[in-house]
């Protein structure tokens, strides 16, 4: 009650000086690791496919943390919250790492690196089926045009014949005449429809290509409007622009508010966020559709977007908690962030542990119960052999029961070191969750090796690439995070809601 903090005392902000050595280590590990990774890639061309999965795993892990930061920023503004103003800058800093990580994903998307076709089978499959369909169409085209022309001629002959029939009947009864006229009408409609067929060379070719495409790869044909290279690249550009723009616009306004204290920035952030949220949700949902769900283009789950979102939001909060704890250890934010903030962040983390479990279980449950062939493949792989133990041990127990039970205790949420350990545990589980999503797809395709004895489900030694990729991207992530942290005050020092946040009690 007594001794309320006054935001005016904090209006100069607090500036982080990133330790030069730490920054250098992050830089060295990050870019050195990446260099090593790509040298290995070109030294071992036969392992290129396996390494693509490693790089995707590392990139998506850190991307999800950055995207989670963007989500918390947007949510904080959209709900007009006051509690988290003092940690909002950390969320914004996390969000602005998105473009750096997305650039790291470029090798996955550019086919020259040899990752793309191994990761997303629909690229090579589509190319192959289109080639064979085009060849077949070129061969069959002339015969096809002749055949269709004959059909059209026959239909027109039928019309003529029917007209002649009518004329030849001497004195038809009204019923007979109506019947014959109706027949002419029907035959004319059929002939008209047939005459509309595009029987130019290009038209016939396109029809034949579609026919062969549908015959050879029915599922890919059904999804051809979405799974094609042009639209794929348009979508990637959309993700990059949307996520980057939202992150930088919000942080830009927030930093501007630090400088001039003009409350209009605060209003802009609030209103802008409500408009940005649908774009953010669309971008992230379809990004994980394209990058993760499309690892097997025959499989689909409508809960995929929200499943990956739950993991991202949960672990981004974990990163914030760890970040605050480390910064406080080094003497920053000492008077700004209180145990009440820890309590609030801990509660959000508990909520998202439950939310993640709810979504993950619902996704499994619906597919398991319905038992429909085209849906079960994903879980069949992951509930077989060692992956089954992995699922139950890490995802059911490790990702849900352990943090849930610990976070239920109120006291835990007010012990910075303990809650940071729980957050660290959650991050480990999140990594294992993404590993579980991506890596089982790395095993050689069962249909490609049909008839061979002893099909290996895993690639020996490939886990070393996973570790190397994760460490490299971690270094790069850390380097840019340190850079962002030191480029502005650690908290929005002239925000209208600073007082409220400094004195928050829950």
């Amino acid at each position, binding site marked *: *009650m*007594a001794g309320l903090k006054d935001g005016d005392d904090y209006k100069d902000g607090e500036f982080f000086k990133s330790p030069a050595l730490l920054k250098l280590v992050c830089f060295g590990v990050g870019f050195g690791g990446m260099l090593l990774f790509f040298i290995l890639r070109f030294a071992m061309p036969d392992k290129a496919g396996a390494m693509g999965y490693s790089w995707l795993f590392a990139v998506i892990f850190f991307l999800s943390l950055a995207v989670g930061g963007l989500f918390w920023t947007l949510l904080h503004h959209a709900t007009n919250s006051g509690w988290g103003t003092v940690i909002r800058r950390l969320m914004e800093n996390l969000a602005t790492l998105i473009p750096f990580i997305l650039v790291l994903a470029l090798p996955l998307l550019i086919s020259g690196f040899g990752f793309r076709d191994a990761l997303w089978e629909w690229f090579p499959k589509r190319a192959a089926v289109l080639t064979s369909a085009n060849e077949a169409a070129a061969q069959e085209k002339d015969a096809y045009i002749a055949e269709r022309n004959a059909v059209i001629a026959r239909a027109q002959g039928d019309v003529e014949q029917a007209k002649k029939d009518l004329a030849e009947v001497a004195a038809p009864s009204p019923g007979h005449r109506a019947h014959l006229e109706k027949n002419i009408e029907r035959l004319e409609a059929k002939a008209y429809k047939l005459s509309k067929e595009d029987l130019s060379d290009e038209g016939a070719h396109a029809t034949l290509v579609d026919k062969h495409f549908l015959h050879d790869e029915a599922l890919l044909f059904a999804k051809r409007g979405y799974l094609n290279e042009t639209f794929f690249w348009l979508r990637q550009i959309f993700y990059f622009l949307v996520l980057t723009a939202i992150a930088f616009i919000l942080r830009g306004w927030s930093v501007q508010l630090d400088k001039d204290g003009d409350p209009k920035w605060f209003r802009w952030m609030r209103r802008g966020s409500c408009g940005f949220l649908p774009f953010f949700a669309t971008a992230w949902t379809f990004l994980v559709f394209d990058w993760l769900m499309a690892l097997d283009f025959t499989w689909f789950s409508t809960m995929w977007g929200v499943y990956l979102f739950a993991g991202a939001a949960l672990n981004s909060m974990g990163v914030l908690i760890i970040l605050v704890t480390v910064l406080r250890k080094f003497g920053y934010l000492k008077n700004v962030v209180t145990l009440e903030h820890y309590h609030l962040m801990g509660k959000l983390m508990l909520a998202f542990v439950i939310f993640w479990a709810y979504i993950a*279980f619902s996704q*499994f*449950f619906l597919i398991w*119960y319905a*038992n429909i062939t085209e849906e079960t493949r994903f879980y069949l792989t992951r509930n077989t052999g060692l992956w089954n133990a992995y699922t139950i041990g890490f995802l059911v127990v490790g990702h849900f029961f352990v943090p849930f039970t610990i976070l*239920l205790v*109120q006291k835990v949420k007010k012990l910075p070191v303990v809650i940071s350990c729980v957050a660290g545990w959650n991050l480990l589980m999140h990594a294992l969750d993404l590993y579980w999503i991506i890596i089982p797809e790395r095993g050689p395709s069962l249909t490609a090796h049909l008839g061979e004895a002893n099909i290996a489900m895993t690639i020996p030694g490939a886990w070393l690439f996973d570790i190397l990729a994760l460490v490299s991207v971690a270094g790069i992530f850390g380097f840019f995070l340190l850079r962002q942290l030191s480029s502005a005050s650690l908290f929005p020092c002239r925000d209208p809601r600073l007082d409220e946040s400094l004195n928050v*009690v829950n």
Partner: protein
Amino acid sequence: MSDSTSSSSELFGYVAEFSSASDLYHAAEKIRDAGFRRWDVHTPYPVHGMDHAMGLGKSWLSAIVLIGGITGSSVALFLQFFTQVSLYPTVVQDKPINVFTLPAFFPVTFELTILLAAFATLFGLLGMITLPRWNHPLFNSSLFSKFSNDGFLMVIESRDPKFKREKTKELLEEIGAGKIEEVNY
């Protein structure tokens, strides 16, 4: 609530009014330090930190809720497992009739956990605050009705072991109470 053992008076306690939330807060700290147990404060709006000033510990309600939740999940799991697997094995959709059929029981378990936890919350709370009841002696006080308008009130009940008719009144005056009213049963 009965006062049959005490023949001294029909006194329920004192209602004391303070001029602001801040005054009430500091008064509460003093009453807490004086070791009173049966007392409460009433304000028109929640005062952050008042639980600390009053020396209130953690509520038992969360423990009751936990027990309710655990009861709900065990009852649901037991009922389903016992009837569908042990007593009369029922094959649905080619699902196994052993421990691996557990996911099928989760929705009911989840719902019953929440239901019983919610019941435990509601009825536990009602029990702890002894509701419902027909009337309360505090409604005899005209001063007390200010609690929902502009009054920052403290109530000390006569059943508190530390309560002394004269000394407590003096104590209240000492810590800055404005108006003090005696409330009878």
